[in-house]
């Protein structure tokens, strides 16, 4: 099992903030909108350095999406910022009509996604956002795993023409990817080559998958671990290549079992190469208040769950 060094513990939202700040200095056409969560989204640096290109829209997310669509129409590259819950479910129709169907170059940047939002509870812990965004024709859906990757993804989506949903989170998590990485949309990243089981993980679950890989290695199981930072378009080639070798798969995500990464991979495999899959995801349930790690554990999306899923799925080969 390949060793990964944790450079530090950082929140992925700060990666977004750092990326946006860099973009602000590099490109005049990048504008940012925020619905009263500038500090939470780490958009302060951009707002301070480029007040003429930062739009505070107040607690009015529906209008924010429409205004962003208008700015994009006029040639700007707008980045919207609010919690994932208010970036998707609350404004699904605005995104559908004014952005996705209208083909607008809007970057929907969503923080505090999933259970790791923590103590605020289920009202704010969206676990359906990847599914909703993935269903929209033409929408690109990205869920990077750490600070460095979130920063790189933020830079990359500015250069891509079309609507994008970029999902990140609140807690400090291990930052282990290359600080100078070039982010390629839709390109899965091999983290560890293995022969016994493929583990496909996204977002915060990528580090958990690495931890699981180490435990599996101690048990003599050689896991292949792949970071699927782009849920849509899915890197079908990398996934199919991996399972053709391992003959079974585990998917891991901080999302409902319905609609997310696991669903996407099962759909691909059922069509191209039907093989056993175990999904590590929240099983048709809302979250609750608690510490991020407590919640990950209680709702079955922790390191141990990936280990157990790998052992289960290998028996089904």
């Amino acid at each position, binding site marked *: 099992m390949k060793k990964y060094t944790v450079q530090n513990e950082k929140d992925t939202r700060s990666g977004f903030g750092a990326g946006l700040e860099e973009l602000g200095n590099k490109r005049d056409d990048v504008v940012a909108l925020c619905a009263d969560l500038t500090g939470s989204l780490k958009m302060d640096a951009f707002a301070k350095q480029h007040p003429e290109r930062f739009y505070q829209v*107040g607690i009015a997310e529906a209008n924010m999406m*429409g*205004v962003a*669509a*208008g700015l994009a129409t006029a040639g700007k590259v707008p980045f919207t910022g609010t919690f994932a819950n208010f970036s998707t479910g609350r404004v699904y129709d605005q995104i559908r*009509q004014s952005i996705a169907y*209208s083909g607008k170059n809007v970057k929907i940047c969503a923080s505090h996604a999933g259970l790791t939002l923590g103590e605020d509870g289920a009202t704010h812990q969206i676990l359906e956002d990847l599914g909703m965004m993935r269903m929209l024709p033409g929408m690109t859906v990205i869920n990077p795993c750490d600070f460095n990757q979130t920063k790189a993804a933020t830079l990359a989506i500015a250069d891509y023409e079309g609507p994008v949903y970029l999902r990140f989170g609140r807690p400090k998590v291990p930052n282990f990817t290359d600080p100078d990485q070039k982010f390629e949309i839709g390109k899965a990243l091999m983290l560890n080559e293995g022969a016994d089981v493929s583990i496909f993980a996204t977002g915060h679950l990528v580090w958990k998958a690495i931890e699981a890989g180490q435990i599996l290695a101690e048990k003599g199981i050689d896991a292949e671990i792949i970071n699927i930072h782009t849920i849509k378009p899915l890197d079908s080639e990398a996934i199919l290549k991996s399972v053709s070798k391992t003959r079974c798969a585990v998917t891991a995500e901080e999302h409902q079992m319905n609609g997310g990464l696991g669903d996407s991979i099962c759909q691909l495999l059922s069509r191209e190469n039907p093989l056993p899959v175990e999904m590590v995801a929240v099983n048709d349930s809302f979250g609750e208040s608690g510490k991020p790690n407590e919640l990950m554990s209680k709702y079955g999306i922790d390191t141990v769950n990936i280990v157990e899923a790998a052992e289960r799925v290998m028996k089904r080969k």
Partner: protein
Amino acid sequence: MADIQHLERIASQVRRDIVRMVHGVQSGHPGGSLGCADFFTALFFDVMDHHAQPFNMSGKGEDVFILSNGHISPVYYSCLARSGYFPVSELASFRKINSRLQGHPATHEHLPGIRVATGSLGQGLSVAVGIALAKKADGEDKHVFALCGDGELQEGQIWEAIMFAVHNRMDNLIITIDANGRQIDGDTKDIMGFGDLAPRFAAFGCEVMHMKGNDMQAVCDGLGKAKSLSGNGKPVVIVMETEMGYPVDFMVGSHEWHGIAPNDAQLESALSQLEETLGDY
């Protein structure tokens, strides 16, 4: 000075297009379209500085119009075609399979003149605000015109957009409300009445004016006045009084013709009341 008679002749043809399009596919929204025909004609043939060819999605350097109440697409399509955005003959494809003229305006099929999909009510105004914001940021002196239905004001997003426009002193934005007092289920005052519109917009901080919407002289004067009121730190709101179905005698006076199509006899009756001036498509 606008040539009122010339504009009235165009509006008559636009109205013929509307009833013929809706009749042709037995589907669509003739009532609000007819009521707004004078407004659209004045905008596209007199008031706006716009360029049909080549169509530029960004609208940079020109006035831009956004239709928020997208269901009155027939009047929009007729005016776009008659002002050169696409062939007039294409109006015959309205709402039919493989058409660029979708039931509600859309960009997906690349119909020139359309800048955003509308029809899910309450959303177009926010997009108009975004375009106006970009024009301000770029130092343009052009206007963004938006049209909303009065029933559409029941959508909360409209008021989010108004708040934003006022807060950001968007005085390059001219918002017209089609105050025909009707919506699908009946009269607006009975469905979800909120009394006089003007004081509500004024209370939010808009510059508000009234305009008679089915009198071409009044429409041209009103839009001219709206432009003169712009540039003073406030968005301008025009409360435009129209009659749904105007001037077809059997369509006025109720909400019934919001979204139904005339049969053959009704088409004949309507067309007999609308002079063919520019040639039917």
